[in-house]
């Protein structure tokens, strides 16, 4: 019986540790969410007011321009920009990633490893080192303050990682499957589309979620390449809450909630694929 007792103690310890870790993980984030529903004066009060005394949607109402107090922040425009830029760049990065990943997984060719490493290393360049040269080139091409300009940058940012994950995933799928399909009368493209692509879905989904989150949350480059509501994304919009010398932290938190929710929903939806995708895409192969 003392084995049973041991097991029970182990379980309690596991739960306790998990609880503490989850607390550390979620409290700073939840605090932001909570702040979004409180007035600034309560948030910045000293001594601290722990229990919200005046919770409400005021901060959101302000942002969206309802109610008595307004901060003219064009959230719908930012949201639309973010959505268009993040999803377009994700889709393109996935297409390029699939094409490249397939090449790495299924073909032998010269300089294969060097090209692969080169693509990976392209990601190591810090955005801060790229921002100005990109700005100068983009301005010559009229890509400043244009969604397309950011989309191109994010595609380049995400391609190495999507290629990597998808390459691993394709290698996991036996070649025989597409060969069987070709014997059954498919072209190579049809074999890819009907057989290999559906099997690689999880890998593509996990590459997609990483790409989306990167583009959705990117700030450094976006702040340089955007100018107006034509292209400003949500993270850049956060800076609208920093006035010359003050920060409207409660308002910023409300905006943060608006940014986080779509990402959270998306992640929750694809997380099953996420784990599977990482498992196979990353290591095996």
């Amino acid at each position: 019986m003392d084995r049973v007792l041991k097991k029970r103690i182990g379980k309690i310890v596991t739960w306790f540790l998990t609880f503490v870790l989850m607390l550390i993980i979620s409290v700073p984030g939840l605090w932001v969410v909570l702040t979004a529903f409180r007035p600034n004066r309560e948030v910045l009060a000293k001594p601290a007011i722990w229990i919200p005394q005046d919770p409400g949607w005021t901060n959101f109402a302000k942002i969206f321009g309802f109610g008595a107090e307004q901060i003219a922040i064009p959230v719908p425009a930012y949201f639309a920009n973010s959505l268009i830029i993040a999803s377009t760049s994700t889709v393109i990065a996935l297409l390029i990633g699939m094409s490249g990943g397939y090449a790495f997984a299924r073909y032998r060719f010269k300089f294969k490893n060097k090209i692969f490493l080169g693509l990976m290393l392209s990601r190591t360049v810090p955005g801060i080192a790229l921002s100005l040269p990109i700005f100068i080139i983009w301005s010559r091409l009229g890509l400043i303050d244009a969604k397309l300009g950011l989309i191109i940058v994010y595609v380049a940012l995400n391609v190495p990682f999507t290629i990597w994950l998808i390459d691993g995933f394709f290698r996991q799928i036996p070649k025989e499957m597409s060969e069987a399909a070709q014997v059954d009368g498919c072209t190579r493209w049809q074999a890819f589309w009907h057989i290999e692509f559906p099997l690689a879905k999880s890998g593509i989904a996990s590459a997609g979620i990483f790409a989306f989150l990167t583009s959705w949350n990117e700030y450094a480059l976006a702040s340089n390449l955007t100018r107006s509501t034509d292209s400003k994304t949500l993270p850049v919009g956060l800076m609208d809450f920093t006035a010359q010398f003050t920060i409207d932290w409660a308002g910023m938190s409300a905006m943060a909630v608006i940014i986080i929710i779509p990402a959270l929903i998306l992640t929750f939806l694809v997380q099953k694929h996420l784990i599977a995708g990482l498992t196979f895409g990353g290591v095996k192969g």
Partner: protein
Amino acid sequence: MTQADVASTANIRPRRRRRRNLTPFLLLSPAILVILFVVLLPLLFSFYTSFTGYRLIKPETLYQWVGFQNYQRIFADKNFWAAFGRTVLFLTIALNLEFLLGLGIALLINRITWGQRALRTMMMFPMMFSPILVGYQFKFIFNDNIGILNNALQALGLSEGAIPWLVDKYLAMFSILFAEIWMSTSVFAILLLAGLFAMPRDPLEAARVDGCNPWQVFRHITLPFLMPFAFIAMTIRSLDVARAYDIVDVMTGGGPAGRTELLWTLIARVGYDNARMGQANAMAYISILLSIAFTYYFFTKLIAARKYMGGAD
């Protein structure tokens, strides 16, 4: 296409063979083009400017060739090397702690069967936060006067004074490390959890039969099996750890007295505020070499580990 395929088609239709050999390059060309355009081209430009006295506000200085002067200056600049050393330290501590914590979280979550899906989502919560937001979030949490951390410590009677989290020599670095680790541990946890899910049970049992106690099983079997996943995470993280720039810039701006100055904040200040782009680009080049070194190290480790994982089951 196997080698045999290539060989057999070669004999019959040489022309088709040539086309097939081009196929992978064709498939890769979009990726290569976009990287050339967005990364390499700008890099060449900034490489050139690192040999000029280029100042942002004086476009004509773009053609003012100064040779190695920028490099000589930064090599002689002790603040630069301090920032360099601090960045290496920051990367090393952050990556290792993120790995250890991620491992702990993954192991715990893997043991829990009830409510695991919710826990997994919660675990990924910080991944939803933009780095810029994480910066502000912890700037307010660690504020010495109105920050919730100090308020909580004081309310609980754990601390008498206002702890200057963002100012103290060690605490300031600790604070930005905490923010960075908070934001990025999820990546490790999720990858290691994926690794645990993929882990075949047999070798674990074999090791138990072979005489291992639980710790030895973990040490000799589980951990080596997880290492490739850890290396992937490390590679990914060392790829975009420069995102920490946003956090540091907001939280401390590299201060006070340069106590939290990392290469990236230094580069941004020199390049934009001081408008000395040439010099900033010289620094950026050295920081790129540093990132490449980190990434290359983990990548080769990964490739080595990947080799034997093929025989995992």
